[in-house]
């Protein structure tokens, strides 16, 4: 295997040359109107919005800060303007069952008009109907009817009186009724006078009194029937008067809504109800209009006539196109609406005018954008949304009602037909979890709008990206950037994407950098933002969050954490890890040591033994063991006992990016060859010995670089990285300068044999035709040691047997 050469300068970062940018400042650039770099997402969005089939709601997935919300809303807003305005929806009283308000669907803008017209109609009722009842003709007719009761009573009683008189019996009023008493010559007979009468006459008088008594009883019994008949007549009269007073007013209104059958029907019902309820609404119990009588108070009237109001639930009078709504608090009530109550004398009252719409109502016929995490965090909101989408209707009911927790009487408004596109916005993990765990999710959200994390850094895309930067600058009203500053931002974008050939689509970080660069430029009293300002912004951001990093480095330089950056050691190597704290990631060198002896063939991962090692780290260790078993003494049992540990690591380790590093330590321990401590190593190992790509390569290199810089460069320090990570390098200028000055070196490693030869300075060695490694190679020394362990182990066990026999 040929010796590995360190990376050249131009491999350490993909610099953006100002020559590639065809403008002087961002003022020269036209803002971007369309979305860039999200072709897949935009196509999916278009598809999801246009397909009309059921279940094709959208889930926009991608990390936060990638412009998902703004892209979706901008797209929908533009599209919605070209679509027709949906209908207005109103709730009106159900005159048959007031607990079940009815819906009226009206052309957009008509709901408010109808509500106003009905308010005016009610005012007209209040003026015209009482006036009709104050008419003299009505009063006379009513009195005539009411006098029928007394007339019929009088007539009947008069007839009884006459019959009584003929029979010498008189009728006298008592405090509680009528008394019948015998008379003679017009004089009431007392007991003595009665006894003096002949017996025959007495008996006749008794009989006549009994008969007359029965007649009076009949009259009394008949009175309720008479009253009922009179009441009916009065009611008919009142209804006729009311009908005459209101029919003209209602006809006029019906003319205005002649094209709407549902309104016509509703107005007919209003008329019927007004006529039916005239007495309750406009009349006292004692009769109309007599001054000082008990007319229903204005307050009572207004309250009674609420039933004729129109509750405009959804008013699209001002809407242009389809509605596009964003709900940032998607709780249950905000989604499906609610029925409000008014507290009155210790009780809660409600009616159809207190039905309030939710966002589903307001977005009906259009689009509703909801943050998925916010939705899932709200109790019962997710279930209620699914229920509405599944049933294609919105049912306004309280949570208590929907869960059958309350049994008090409440409103059951007619459900509103639902036709809406729901767009959920969330991260990928959430999407996949919902997909796997919620069986209804796939039925209701069939369209995934997957946002790219980054786009290719092609020359064309670089130009577009520059325009995007200009758009962000304009949007935030920042100072213009010169092209060197834009170039630096583009390099930052690649660094953020962790790929020299990509540009990040996480525009939040880019926008923050622009704002902070602008700030530093203003601090320097500049009128144009330059690359220095951008670099300063980057450095200052790192500094703000770099307290832990600085502190660690200080302790390492002091020797609290033992990391050697000079000399060489057997079985010890510098490893690299990345620590993510808040929004800041930094490289953190560590020390791995290995111990070996003869044993049963296990490689002990001390981290795993004490539960500080994660599953990925354990996997890496097993791969390492697999490599050993596959490459050395395949014809003999592995009689090795080895232990590996991250020294001075107390917080847990995961990931397999240090598996190659651990292998180097083990090979060093087995071969007895020391490893140069001037190097730090990172790379994931395969069982074939390939060194595979890892994450955070830039931070890891810079982490070791900072330590070497703090101690003073020796000229031979550097980092071994997987060759597959070379395309991800976007190292900061300081590192590049050090490499240029040959103070620091970075080696791309494809196979452990390359790495071990760099670390030990000894060739790794390849098996010859006889299958043996050359003697003075790393592999040869390792294999010889393993064979020795195997021999020792065999001898040990053989002695064991002999001892037993003895």
């Amino acid at each position, binding site marked *: 295997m040929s010796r590995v050469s360190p990376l050249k300068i131009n491999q350490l970062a993909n610099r953006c040359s100002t020559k590639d940018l065809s403008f002087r400042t961002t003022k020269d650039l036209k803002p971007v109107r369309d979305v860039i770099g999200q072709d897949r997402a935009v196509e999916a969005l278009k598809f999801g919005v246009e397909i009309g089939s059921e279940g094709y709601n959208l889930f926009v997935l991608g990390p936060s800060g990638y412009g998902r919300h703004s892209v979706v809303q901008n797209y929908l807003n533009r599209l919605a303007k070209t679509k027709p305005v949906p209908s207005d929806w109103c709730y009106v009283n159900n005159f048959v069952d007031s607990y079940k308000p009815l819906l009226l669907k009206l052309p957009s803008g008509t709901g408010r008009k109808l509500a106003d017209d009905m308010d005016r109609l009610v005012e007209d009722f209040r003026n015209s109907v009482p006036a009709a009842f104050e008419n003299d003709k009505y009063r006379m007719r009513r009195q005539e009817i009411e006098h029928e009761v007394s007339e019929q009573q009088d007539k009947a009683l008069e007839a009884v009186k006459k019959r009584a008189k003929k029979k010498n019996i008189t009728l006298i009023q008592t405090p509680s009724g009528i008394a019948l008493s015998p008379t003679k010559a017009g004089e009431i007979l007392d007991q003595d006078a009665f006894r003096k009468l002949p017996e025959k006459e007495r008996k006749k008088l008794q009989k006549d009194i009994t008969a007359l008594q029965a007649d009076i009883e009949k009259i009394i*019994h008949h009175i309720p029937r008479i009253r009922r008949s009179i009441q009916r007549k009065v009611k008919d009269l009142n209804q006729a008067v009311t009908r005459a007073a209101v029919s003209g007013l209602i006809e006029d209104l019906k003319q205005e809504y002649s094209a709407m059958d549902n309104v016509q029907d509703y107005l007919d019902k209003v008329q019927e109800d007004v006529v039916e309820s005239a007495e309750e609404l406009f009349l006292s119990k004692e009769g109309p209009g007599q001054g*000082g009588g008990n007319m229903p108070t204005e307050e009572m009237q207004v309250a009674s006539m609420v039933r004729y109001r129109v509750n405009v639930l959804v008013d699209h009078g001002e809407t242009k196109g389809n509605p596009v709504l964003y709900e940032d608090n998607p709780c249950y009530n905000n989604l499906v609406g609610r029925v409000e109550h008014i507290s009155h004398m210790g009780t809660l009252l409600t009616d159809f005018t207190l039905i309030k719409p939710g966002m589903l109502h307001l977005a009906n016929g259009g689009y509703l954008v909801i943050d998925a995490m916010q939705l899932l965090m709200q109790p019962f909101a997710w279930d209620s949304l699914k229920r509405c989408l599944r049933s294609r209707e919105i049912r306004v009911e309280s949570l208590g009602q929907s869960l059958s927790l309350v049994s008090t009487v409440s409103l059951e408004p007619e459900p509103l037909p639902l036709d809406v596109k729901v767009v959920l916005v969330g991260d990928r993990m959430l999407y996949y979890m919902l997909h796997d765990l919620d069986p209804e999710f796939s039925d209701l959200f069939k369209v995934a709008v997957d946002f790219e994390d980054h786009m290719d850094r092609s020359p064309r895309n670089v130009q577009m990206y520059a325009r995007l930067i200009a758009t962000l600058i304009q949007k935030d009203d920042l100072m213009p950037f010169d092209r060197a500053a834009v170039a630096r931002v583009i390099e930052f974008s690649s660094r953020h994407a962790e790929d020299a050939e990509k540009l990040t689509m996480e525009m939040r970080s880019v926008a923050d950098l622009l704002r902070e660069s602008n700030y530093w430029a203003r601090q320097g009293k500049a009128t144009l933002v330059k690359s220095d300002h951008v670099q300063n912004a980057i450095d200052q951001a790192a500094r703000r969050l770099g307290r832990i990093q600085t502190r660690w480095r200080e302790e390492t330089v002091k020797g609290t954490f033992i990391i050697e950056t000079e000399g060489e050691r057997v079985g010890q190597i510098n490893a690299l890890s990345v620590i993510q704290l808040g929004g800041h990631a930094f490289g953190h060198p560590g020390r791995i040591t290995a111990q070996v002896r003869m044993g049963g063939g296990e490689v002990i991962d001390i981290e795993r033994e004490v539960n500080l090692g994660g599953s990925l780290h354990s996997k890496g260790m097993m791969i390492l063991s697999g490599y050993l078993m596959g490459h050395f003494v395949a014809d003999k049992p592995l009689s090795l006992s080895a232990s590996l540990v991250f020294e001075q690591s107390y917080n847990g380790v995961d990931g397999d990016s240090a598996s190659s590093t651990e292998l180097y330590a083990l090979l060093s321990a087995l071969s007895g060859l020391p490893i140069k401590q001037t190097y730090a190593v990172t790379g994931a190992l395969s069982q074939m010995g390939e060194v595979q790509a890892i994450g955070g390569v830039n931070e890891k290199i810079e982490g070791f670089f900072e330590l070497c810089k703090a101690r003073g460069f020796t000229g031979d320090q550097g980092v071994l990285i997987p060759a597959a990570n070379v395309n991800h390098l976007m190292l900061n200028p300081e590192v590049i300068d050090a490499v240029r000055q040959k103070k620091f070196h970075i080696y791309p490693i494809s196979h452990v044999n390359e790495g071990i030869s760099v670390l030990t300075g000894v060739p790794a060695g390849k098996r010859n035709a006889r299958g043996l490694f050359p003697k003075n190679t790393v592999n040869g020394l390792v294999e010889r040691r393993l064979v020795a362990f195997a021999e020792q182990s065999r001898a040990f066990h053989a002695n064991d047997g002999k001892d037993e026999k003895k």
Partner: protein
Amino acid sequence: MNSKRILIALDSSSQSLSALDAAVEIAHQRGCELLGVFIEDAELLRVTECDVAREVGASAAQSRDLQHAEIESIFRSLAAHARQSLEIAAERKRIPWDFQVIRGQVDETLTELMKEVEVTALGSLSSRWPATSGFGSTALNVLKKSKGGVFIARNGNSILFPVTVVSRTLEESRMALETAFSMGNLCHHYFNVLYLPGDDPLQELELRQWLTQVSQDKAVLFRMYVITPPTMMNLAGYLQAFRPGTLILPDIPWLKKARFLKQVQTLDCPVYLIRGMEEMEAS
């Protein structure tokens, strides 16, 4: 005649209590005393002495024997209630009052008592069954026979608006309106004045002028109508048309006529009959 007393016939019906309210207002305005009377119907008591007499109850339509003791007990209870009502009403306005319970024939007793008072107030009907429209026999009797003023409450009301005054002369109008004003605060209400013209055409002019003055002084509104010709039926027609809230009548001869009384009864409003001028001068 004691011109400083108002007789109020009480039987504890709501009508008689309304009449009591009106009587209290009139007494308060005029500085009169109140004489309340409850008449124990002697005829009824006589009926209870006959074993064969029977009563049919108005509420339950059930017949039973009449018990003398029971009727007396009811009378005592009604009288006590009437007395209490009078006491409360009179004390409210600090009006001197007296109450009598008299056993006798109702109409005759009242007729005797009316001779000694300025005004007699009563309800149009008792609370007894059947409740008919119009005036009861006692009210009709009082209207016909009284020499003094009579106030008849209707339907539980003592005063309703608009007040309609019928007059033949300026003096009658003055008396009528003073009577009306004595019944309460009538500011901002309006009055109908139905004028029956006599031979002197200047009377009408004087009356109009006086009404204008009163309207300003008392903040009330008047509408004056001249009944031409001043006949009973014409007047009855006007009354039917205007539907008075309260009717104030002078002591006109037609009042005794059954036809006119029938028309007045159908108006269903409280009626105040004021005493004529000759009686006033005599007293």
